[in-house]
């Protein structure tokens, strides 16, 4: 059986998105900046997509800027806050320990340039406390950036509360909503969001395209110079087919949001209940407060990459936060931020499902994972030490 359970990495494009894109490629290949009819026909389609996307977010079309994806949107949002803050000598940014690297690496770079960065604790449950945000805000704070939902463990952050605090304090608030858009109901106005990043390929749209939402009145800084596209805030001929595909995918995801959630949540719960039966396993992140499809577990005594590869051989696509999958010596910064020790964090597995998965597939995963975990534990000297008491277990049995 083939089971794709890595939807947090990327999703298969929907028929609606593929059809919208191929149609756009055939019929509106003009340059939207051209004044002639061929160009203007593309412009009309582009602006329609902008309106449709805005509507899904509770925004207006003018607040939508197209980017190459979530990472670019994150970088542009941060740069915007830096530029706006510079005029008022604001050189302090608040974020969290478990943000995506698109945010963390941009902030590390700013730290080298003299910015002060506060990375908030995400506690054992992987949820930022609004009180911590309030306490961290200073007169010189230029930006608070907290992700909507974590990409590895799926925990949902109290975005609305954090946004309200930022409004009250007059601080810009950005959220990386790459894992949330299309999976959770989002309303930028109700959620008190000033800037939001999204990426099309996380909700069955195409890769290489995303959006930076910026509330009216926020003057975006430009990352890419060279033209008047996107009101001069993002040069380069617009990727009309991908943008159209993104709009089609988001419209579909938004229209079926409740239905999809009603289907995915019980599958996720079944997965969690089943995996918890494995001795010395641990569900990472808050049990309830999570996006419909993301499940992340640690299994003591084994290493995640070998687990992932053996599951792949059984047709199951998953991911892991082990060092070996991150290409560094350290395991996932997200798991470490939850207080999980290195040794245990190496044995992590992320399964991310969505409405395209079936109950039979969940049953298949629940049959395969315990077998593979047992097999790897059987050849693990760490597990041997845990069993004979030479090492101490971190989790309860």
């Amino acid at each position, binding site marked *: 059986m083939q089971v794709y359970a890595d939807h947090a990495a990327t999703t298969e494009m929907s028929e609606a998105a593929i059809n919208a894109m191929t149609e756009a490629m055939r019929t509106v290949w003009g340059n939207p900046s051209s004044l002639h009819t061929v160009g203007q026909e593309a412009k009309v389609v582009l602006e329609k997509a902008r309106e449709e996307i805005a509507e899904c977010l509770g925004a207006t079309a003018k607040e939508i800027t197209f980017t190459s994806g979530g990472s670019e949107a994150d970088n542009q949002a941060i740069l915007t806050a830096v530029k706006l803050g510079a005029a008022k000598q604001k050189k302090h940014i608040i974020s969290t320990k478990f943000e995506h690297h698109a945010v963390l690496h941009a902030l590390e770079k700013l730290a080298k340039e003299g910015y002060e960065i506060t990375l908030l604790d995400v506690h054992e449950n992987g949820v930022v406390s609004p009180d911590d945000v309030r306490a961290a805000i200073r007169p010189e704070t230029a930006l608070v950036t907290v992700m909507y939902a974590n990409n590895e463990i799926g925990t949902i952050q109290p975005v609305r509360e954090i946004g309200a605090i930022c409004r009250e304090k007059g601080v810009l608030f950005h959220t990386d909503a790459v894992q949330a858009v299309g999976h959770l109901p989002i309303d930028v106005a109700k959620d008190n969001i000033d800037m939001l990043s999204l990426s099309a390929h996380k909700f069955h749209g195409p890769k290489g395209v995303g959006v930076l939402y910026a509330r009216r009145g926020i003057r975006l800084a430009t990352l890419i110079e060279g033209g008047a596209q996107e009101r001069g805030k993002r040069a380069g001929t617009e990727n009309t087919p991908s943008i159209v595909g993104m709009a089609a995918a988001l419209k579909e995801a938004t229209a079926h949001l409740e239905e999809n959630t009603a289907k995915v949540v019980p599958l996720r719960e079944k997965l969690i209940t089943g995996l918890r039966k494995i001795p010395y396993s641990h569900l990472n992140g808050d049990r309830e407060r999570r996006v419909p499809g993301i499940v992340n577990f640690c299994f003591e005594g*084994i290493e995640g990459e*070998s687990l992932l590869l053996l599951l792949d051989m059984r047709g199951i696509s998953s991911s892991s936060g082990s060092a070996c999958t991150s290409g560094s010596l350290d*395991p996932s910064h997200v798991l470490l931020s939850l207080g999980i*020790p*290195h040794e245990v964090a190496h044995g992590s597995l992320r399964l991310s499902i969505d409405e395209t998965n079936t109950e039979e597939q969940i049953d298949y995963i629940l049959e395969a994972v315990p077998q593979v975990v047992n097999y790897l534990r059987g050849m*693990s000297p760490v597990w041997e030490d845990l069993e004979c008491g030479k090492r101490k277990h971190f989790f309860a049995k």
Partner: protein
Amino acid sequence: MLYSEKVMDHFQNPRNVGKMDDADGIGEVGNAKCGDIMKMYIKVDDNGIITDVKFNTFGCGSAIASSSMATEMIKGKPITEALELSNKAVVEALDGLPAHKLHCSVLAEEAVRAAVKDYYDKHGIAYDAKEFCAGDCAHCGEHDAE
């Protein structure tokens, strides 16, 4: 594909995996904090021939494949030859490893040496201590010892 067919073969069907109750030498190297630990068991006969080898490994695909390959390469060989096993030879036998996985082969070489050293120690065989620490072990000092 990240790994060669050889690596995948040794990962999926590891040779000589398991423990050995009557081992003449046991070597354990690596650090769980870094994500890989190898434990190697050897059985040595009166002529100094390694008659049996077993391993247990906590680690990624290439760590398991490297251990498996190393056991194959020293089984049936004199101890002196086992000591000459280099990580490079393990990598070559596996048809290569990705650059960031080369340390797995170093660990396999170290596991063999640690098992031999343990055998020497247990059997009162004299050896040159310097031979067992070249001072360039891949993981030396990278993380605090646990």
